[in-house]
C-alpha cells in the first residue's frame, strides 16, 4: 500500500503547466490539468481517477485515452507507467444500449 500522505509530500503540490488545457479523454472531455490535479489530491490509481473525473468512462471506455492517462499519472507520481495500478476490467467491453443489457437472459423482464 502506498502511504498517500508520504507520496503527496514526495511529489509536492500541483503546479500549473502550459499544456494543462489539453484534452486527454475525448469522450468525457477531461483535460491533462484535471488529471494532474487529481493526482495531487491523492488519486493515484486509474480506477480512482476514472471514478473521480470520468476519464475513460465514456462511450469508448478508455480505448483511446487509457495509455495517455496512465502516462500522465505515472509522471506525476514519478514512477514507471507499469507501476500505476490499472483499472478493473468489466463487461460490457463495447458500448451498448441499457435496454439490451437489461433484457440480458430475459431475467429483468420477469
Amino acid at each position, binding site marked *: 500500500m502506498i502511504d498517500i500522505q508520504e507520496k503527496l509530500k514526495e511529489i509536492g503540490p500541483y503546479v500549473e503547466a502550459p499544456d494543462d488545457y489539453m484534452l486527454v479523454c475525448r469522450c468525457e472531455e477531461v483535460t491533462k490539468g484535471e488529471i494532474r490535479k487529481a493526482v495531487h489530491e491523492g488519486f493515484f490509481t486509474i480506477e480512482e481517477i476514472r471514478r473521480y473525473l470520468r476519464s475513460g468512462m465514456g462511450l469508448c471506455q478508455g480505448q483511446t485515452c487509457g495509455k495517455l492517462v496512465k502516462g500522465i499519472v505515472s509522471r506525476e507520481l514519478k514512477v514507471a507507467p507499469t507501476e500505476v495500478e490499472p483499472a478493473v476490467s468489466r463487461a460490457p467491453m463495447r458500448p451498448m*444500449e441499457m435496454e439490451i443489457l437489461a433484457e440480458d437472459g430475459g431475467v429483468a423482464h420477469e
Partner: protein
Amino acid sequence: MKIERYDMIVVGAGPAGLSAAIEAAKRGIKPIVFDENQRPGGQLFKQIHKFFGSKEHKAKIRGFKIGEELLAEAEQYGVKVVLNATVIGLYPEKEVTVRIGDEVKHYKGDAVLVATGAAENMVNFKGWTLPGVIGAGAAQTMMNLHHIKPGNRVLMLGSGNVGLVVSFQLLQSGCEVVALADAAPRVGGYGVHAAKVSRCGVPFYLSHTIVEAEGTDHVTGVVIGQVGPDWKVIPGTEKHFDVDTICLAVGLSPMSQLLKQAGCKMADTKGGYVPVCDEDGATSVPGVYAAGDVSGIEEASSAMIEGRMSGATIAEYLGYITKEEKESRVNELEAQLDTLRQGMFAPKNRGKLVEKTEEGIDVSMNLLEKGYVAQDEIERYPGVTKSKGIHPVIECTQNIPCNPCQDACKMGCIMIGKNITSLPAVDSNHKCIGCGMCVASCSGQAIFLVEEDVEPGYGEVTMPYEFLPLPEVGDKGMAYGRDGREVCAAEVTKVRTSKAFDHTNLLTIKVPNEMLMTARFYKAK
C-alpha cells in the same frame, strides 16, 4: 437463461483466431469464432503490401490474399464464424457473453481462445480532436476497404512499419504525403519500407513531433517542431504544412481487457498490458488461451503461427490429440516463429541501435535518420555490385527475415543462404537474364535491374512500380534519386506487367550511364 456449449470458443476472427480455429478443426474440434466486425480477417484485408518472411510464412503474398486463403481454409474445415457478434464479457468459468443483434447471448466453452488483437496508441497535441486527425488504421480502413481517400494532403506521424507502410498506401491511393515525422531520432520500421516512401519524394522529419493541428471545424494545417533530448519542442524549429489530414501511427497496445476480466494473471510491460502465458498461449486460467497481438504486439505472420500453436494446444487440452502429436506440431511451428523473430528487428533488439549488420557491415545511418541510403553508403552492401551487363542491384541493407528474392531467381544470381536474415548477395558468376522476377518478388521493393550502355552513353534501370496511371513506353519524365530529388530526364523504355508479378509492375527507364546507380524512381512530367 439459455447457455450454448462449445468445445472451443474463439474471440476474434483475425489472423490468430482464424488460424487457431482451423488448426483445431483439423483435429476434429468444432470451434465457434465470434467477431464484432462485418467481415472476418481482422486487419489482414487492409494489408495490401507483400509480406516478408520465407515461403512457410507466405512471404511475397499480399496480406489481403493471405486473408482470403485463411477464410477459404476456415470454410474447408467447417469453422463456424459468427460476424457482427461482439463479445462483451468473459468470466472465470469460461462463460462468454456476446451481443448479437439486439440480444446478449451466453456461451460456455471448454476452451476459450482470446485473439482480440490490438488497439492503436494515440498522442495528444493541440487540436488533436479536430476532424481530420485520424489513426493510421483509420486511413487503411478508408482507402483499402471502403475505397475512399482519407484526405488529399496528409502528414504522417510515426516511422514504425505501420507509419511507413500506410504512407506508401496513401501514395498508392492518390493522396499526397507532405511529410513523415517521428519524435524518435531514428526510423523505427524496416529500412526498405522507408526507402520506398523516401524515393517518392516524402521528406522525413526525425526528432520531430506535432506542435499543433490547425483549423476550427476540421484540419487545415499542421505545425511540427524538432524535439530536444527532453522531448520538448525546441523554439524556433517549427515548420508549417498545409494539410487536410494528420495520420497517427504511434504504436499499438494489446486489447487484453477480456483476459483481465476472466481473471488471468496479467503483466504490465513496456509492450502493453498482456496476459502471462506459457509458450503455447495458455494463460493462468486453465482452458483460457491467448494468441496474436493480444499477447504481445508482432506481425500478422507471427500471429498466424501463434494461433496455430494455440489451436494444437487446445486440441490436446480437450483430448483430441495426444501430447506427442501436439508437441511435434508445436515444435514445427515454433521453428517457423523463431525464424521470424531473428534479425535486426527481433523482439530482443527493440529500442536498440544496431550499428552493424550480421555480416559486419556498417548500417546506413542516413537510412535511419533520413529514410534513405546515401549514395556513398549504398555500394558497401553485398547485393550492390557493378558490371556492364544487366544485373540486379539489391538495396537490402538490414537483416530482416525475408528470402523470396533467392527463390525468385532461377539463374542462381541471388544468394541468401540458410539464414534468412542474411543480406542477399549477388553472384556475378551466374548470368542475369533480366527476367525481373526478383524485382517483383521483393516485398521491400528494394531490387532494381541495371544495364549499362544500352545505347551509347545511356543505360536502363528497371524498378518496381505500384502506382496508377501506369506509364507507357515512350513517355518522358524525370528520374528521382533515393532521396526523392529529381536527378535527370528519363524515358520509359519498357513496362512489364504479369500475373506472376502480382501487381508489381516493372518499369524500365533510360537514363545516362552515370545515373544508373542514382535513379530509383520515375514520375511523369
